[in-house]
């Protein structure tokens, strides 16, 4: 049974249409005009236990709205969400017991108190027994080094430390599913590394299912075995990163440095550009392997150096975002 099942989920917001100018404001006072915005439009997917799924999309695509619905903060307009077979809209309390949620932009810790106090409060809220609490705390210390910051007031923690605190707080009640909304936003390289290490670690040792939204390509590359891409409230891609690369950008680049300027053509590769002694070839994986290509070229001129480049994730995601939205338009 999948851990998370989302079926035909729709979320609409009602907003008041503001008219321009003072006249509009006065009119709005007596006769406000309502407008309906669809943030999430009929999305469906299911996630199995132990997956790490990157839920990505441009700003305003509906990512956070989906995460908020899955974690029971928002009620869906229509459609269904099942977490371990239970709907958060129907039985919020039992669903949230199985969830850990972290919002990168907002802390859930007590701002003025030492970090440990927030853990103590959460321990009581979730009624975590001593043995579980202690073993979880130990694990959090092993992975995140929590004990070194546990006595510091939260307001004095750096952003990276605070995020570590938030992650630990979300794991205290040993949730099955972890929702992370932009967990690495604004963090430095070290802190990002620590967070990614943490996600991998709990995923492998506890089989915790992780769904994270992010704009960080490093997160996607290092963590996500599966990507769900959403834009304008609709899912436009759902699959592994490799699949996505193969479909969207199935080509690679071979950069060859010769000893002198050359113009060597190959039937299965196109020349992208020639700069002095450097020639850049572009070829498709399905047509020819890199080794064959190097071999063929090497027969015609002496090669000094070579480099092989994949299409960058950056490109792929950009293409994915644009492709479908153009398609829709």
């Amino acid at each position, binding site marked *: 049974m999948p851990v998370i099942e989302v079926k035909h989920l729709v979320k609409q917001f009602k907003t008041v249409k503001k008219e321009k100018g003072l006249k509009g404001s006065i009119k709005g006072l007596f006769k406000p005009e309502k407008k309906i915005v669809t943030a999430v439009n009929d999305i469906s997917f299911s996630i199995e236990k132990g997956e790490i799924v990157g839920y990505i999309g441009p700003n305003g695509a509906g*990512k956070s709205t989906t995460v908020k619905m899955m974690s029971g903060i928002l009620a869906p307009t229509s459609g269904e969400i099942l977490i371990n077979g239970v709907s958060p809209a129907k039985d919020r*309390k039992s669903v*949230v017991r199985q969830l850990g949620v972290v919002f990168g932009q907002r802390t859930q810790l007590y701002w003025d108190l030492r970090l440990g106090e927030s853990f103590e*409060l959460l321990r009581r*809220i*979730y009624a975590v027994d001593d043995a579980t609490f202690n073993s979880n705390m130990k694990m959090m210390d092993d992975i995140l080094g929590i004990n070194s910051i546990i006595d510091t007031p939260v307001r004095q923690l750096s952003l990276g430390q605070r995020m570590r605190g938030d992650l630990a707080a979300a794991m205290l009640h040993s949730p099955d599913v972890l929702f992370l909304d932009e967990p690495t936003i604004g963090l430095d390289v070290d802190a990002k590394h620590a967070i990614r290490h943490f996600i991998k670690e709990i995923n492998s040792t506890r089989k915790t299912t992780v769904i994270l939204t992010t704009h960080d390509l490093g997160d996607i590359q290092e963590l996500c075995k599966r990507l769900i891409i959403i834009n304008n409230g609709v899912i436009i891609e759902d699959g592994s990163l490799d699949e996505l690369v193969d479909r969207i950008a199935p080509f690679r680049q071979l950069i060859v440095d010769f000893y002198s300027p050359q113009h060597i053509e190959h039937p299965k590769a196109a020349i992208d550009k020639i700069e002095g002694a450097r020639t850049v070839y572009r070829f498709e994986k399905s047509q020819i392997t890199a080794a064959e290509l190097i071999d063929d070229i090497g027969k015609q001129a002496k090669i000094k150096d070579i480099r092989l480049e994949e299409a960058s994730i950056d490109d792929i995601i950009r293409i994915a975002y644009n492709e479908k939205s153009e398609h829709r338009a």
Partner: protein
Amino acid sequence: MKKLKHYCSVAMLSARLSIQSCIEYPIAFIGWLISNPIQFLVGFATIKFVVMEFDTIAGWDFKELAFLYGVSILSHGLSVIFFTKTWYMGWTIIHGEMDRLRLRPMNTLFQFLVGELNFVGFTDLIPGIILFVYGCISVDFKWTLYNTVAMICTIIGATLLRGAMYLGLGSITFWSKSPMNISGFLQELFNRTNMYPLSMYPRAVQFVFSFILPFSWICFYPASEFLGKDSLIKLPFGMAFITLALGIVMFMIACRIFSAGFKQYESAGS
């Protein structure tokens, strides 16, 4: 039973944490400790001055007015401790701070009210206690068993009544999504309408403040029974219990409004 214990343990710890948070800013706390009592001494002084001029107001002399004010301000102090959060609901909702409540496996309203008790509210309770004691002494309040029970019911009912109105009004922001804070004005209206006996108003206004906006149940009716004063509604005894019952009913209604608002809560952010 287990559930009750669970909620109690969370409430106790939350209370401790809010005291600790408050101690983190001692200067602000001392500031409130000075400023809040001043507010009520000022109110008390105005009663005194007016009575010095006109002797009585609607047949109530200064001692009786002091008693009325004391009961009112005591319930005000208590309501400040438990319901301050409802004054800033607009802010809380707009900044998406309500999200957190839905993420935890506990009742949302319980978390909202108990989760961050306002320890600073105790600075409002101090003048409340002083004026209450002063009022009781000046009218020579008899602490018989009935009177004691009735007084406790009055105070609890009055606190719930005030809280219910703050909560109900605050919950409107779930729909209006406005950061405007009108509860300060509401507080003043409560205090102003309970400072003087209801019987000074024409019958129509008395009716409004008794049945449409039940402000007078906060303390006027119970106090007039304790003092044996005339009022619009006459009962041989038990005004205090009506206050309590009304407080509970109003509070339950406010809870309904809160939950209904929360149902269509739209969290902030994308």
